[in-house]
């Protein structure tokens, strides 16, 4: 399969376009598209690491776009394919899912494919744009005034972010005359224009990946979007922005300490602020949204380190948060469908009415707090290890503080689910609701038992623990 990497991008695009054309069959096309994409991801996985760099033309690398995958990209692709497939099944259970959700889902696959395999900074821009615009439309699908306002606010944040990213691209291209990451890596030096370029990239991608104060749009967008959309937004869309930022940093800007320092200080700010706001939130989806802000903060701690431990921590945290948060949103979504309300108090007695959803919330809590044996525990363990190596007490305090806050906001939910319900439990749930809960439970469960395979994951990523 020599064209595997091109298929990762092209195949879901075909499904997306046919979904928009044949809206009557959009559901079926979306389902097929999601699973076809997952199949290509699995094939890529089995062909790796003997997969050559894919080029679209024989032109010099300065013009021809190159596609390649490494272990990190494969991890992201695998997580994306898994979560997208489960979210598709989940949205089949929800009666009022908009038909346009399915082609947009395929479009999201295309965007994610572009971002994870591209070796070209301009092609990365196009991929990021595709993901952002798709996510904006998904947010607006609800059609309420609140949703449209949130979508516009998200659109402006994303657009300004991509403008800043583009300025960074302009600076790199005018100084080095190439866009290919590998070629750039050989040519960059720590000159003043490069410092400025990194500031542009960092603020632009910070906006897209909801870093601390740059994430002002995230709770609004989550509060009004459908739960399936929120799950995708939190688990995958914001991580795509972070993935690009980390890719650029590790290849081009490792020496830029000042901006990196600001990034990880912002990360600490996000951990504490997000956790506090999640505790104070009155709406269910806002709890999960602010918790995302907090958990995304952990990712930005990587800019304080260059050790293998921190590297392991980063990718474990990415996996832990993607799975646990998608599971949490889907579980809260089925509770909201059941009660018809979005207030935190509405999940009172959920363990009696929707036991599987309550169990999924509890499992997500285990990961988000970082209790063993979850992936979240492994991630925080490696973060603490890395911080101890450098005697960075600020980060140790932030990691532990974030856990305490996660404990507070997740236990607030859990205690409510265990209280006596207001209404008597219904004996037989509709099949749709059960399907939705199974999806949530599957993702949350994976985030917990994934921790058992920590050693396998770190070995796959090529990082060794010390």
């Amino acid at each position, binding site marked *: 399969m020599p064209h595997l990497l091109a298929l990762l991008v092209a195949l879901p695009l075909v499904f997306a376009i046919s979904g928009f054309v044949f809206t009557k069959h959009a559901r079926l096309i979306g389902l097929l598209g999601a699973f076809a994409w997952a199949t290509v991801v699995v094939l890529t996985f089995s062909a790796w690491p003997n997969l050559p760099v894919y080029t679209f033309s024989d032109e010099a690398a300065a013009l021809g776009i190159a596609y390649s995958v490494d272990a990190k990209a494969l991890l992201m692709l695998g997580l994306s394919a898994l979560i997208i497939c489960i979210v598709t099944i989940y949205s089949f259970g929800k009666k009022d899912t908009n038909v346009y959700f399915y082609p947009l889902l395929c479009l999201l696959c295309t965007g994610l494919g572009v971002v994870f395999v591209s070796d070209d900074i301009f092609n990365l821009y196009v991929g990021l744009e595709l993901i952002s615009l798709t996510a904006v439309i998904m947010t607006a699908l609800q059609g309420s*005034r609140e949703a449209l306002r949130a979508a516009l606010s998200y659109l402006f944040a994303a657009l300004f972010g991509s403008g800043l990213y583009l300025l960074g691209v302009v600076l790199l291209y*005018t100084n080095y005359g190439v866009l290919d990451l590998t070629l750039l890596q050989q040519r960059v030096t720590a000159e003043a224009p490069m410092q400025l370029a990194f500031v542009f990239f960092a603020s632009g991608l910070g906006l897209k990946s909801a870093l601390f104060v740059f994430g002002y749009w995230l709770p609004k967008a989550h509060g009004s979007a459908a739960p399936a959309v929120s799950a995708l937004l939190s688990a995958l869309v914001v991580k795509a922005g972070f993935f690009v930022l980390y890719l650029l940093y590790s290849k081009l800007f490792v020496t830029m300490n000042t901006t990196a320092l600001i990034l990880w200080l912002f990360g600490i700010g996000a951990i504490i602020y997000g956790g506090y706001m999640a505790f104070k939130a009155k709406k269910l989806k806002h709890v999960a949204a602010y918790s995302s802000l907090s958990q995304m903060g952990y990712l930005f701690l990587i800019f304080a380190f260059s050790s293998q431990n921190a590297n392991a921590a980063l990718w474990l945290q990415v996996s832990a948060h993607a799975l646990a948060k998608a599971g949490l949103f889907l579980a809260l979504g089925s509770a909201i469908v059941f009660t018809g309300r979005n207030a935190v108090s509405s999940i009172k007695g959920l363990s009696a009415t929707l036991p599987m959803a309550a169990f999924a919330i509890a499992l997500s809590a285990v990961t988000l707090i970082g209790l063993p044996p979850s992936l979240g525990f492994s991630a925080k363990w490696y973060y603490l290890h890395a911080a101890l190596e450098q005697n960075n007490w600020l980060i140790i305090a932030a990691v532990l503080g974030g856990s305490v806050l996660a404990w507070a906001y997740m236990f607030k939910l859990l205690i409510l689910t265990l209280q006596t319900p207001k209404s008597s439990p219904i004996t037989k749930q509709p099949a749709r609701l059960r399907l939705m809960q199974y999806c949530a439970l599957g993702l949350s469960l994976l985030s917990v038992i994934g921790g058992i395979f920590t050693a396998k994951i770190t070995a796959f990523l090529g990082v060794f623990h010390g």
Partner: protein
Amino acid sequence: MSVIYVITASALLTLGAAGFLRTKDIFKRLIHFNLFTSGIFLLFIALTYTGAPDAAAVALVLTGLVVSLGATALGLMLLRTLQSRGG
């Protein structure tokens, strides 16, 4: 590289960004966003111009224009739907 173009581009870019950050009006923000990106594109072409336009830069700006056109159209559609719902 012609200085006048670089200055114009920088002015457009700054005006667009400043306006974008200052105003709350959705329609004005869309216009400011277009000024901002036009500034970036002009800057890109002006900085890479060496007697003749740089082919790769022109191709990239063209792609960027299409993206910003799509984004503007999406913003306008969202705004129109919002207004038709009385918000």
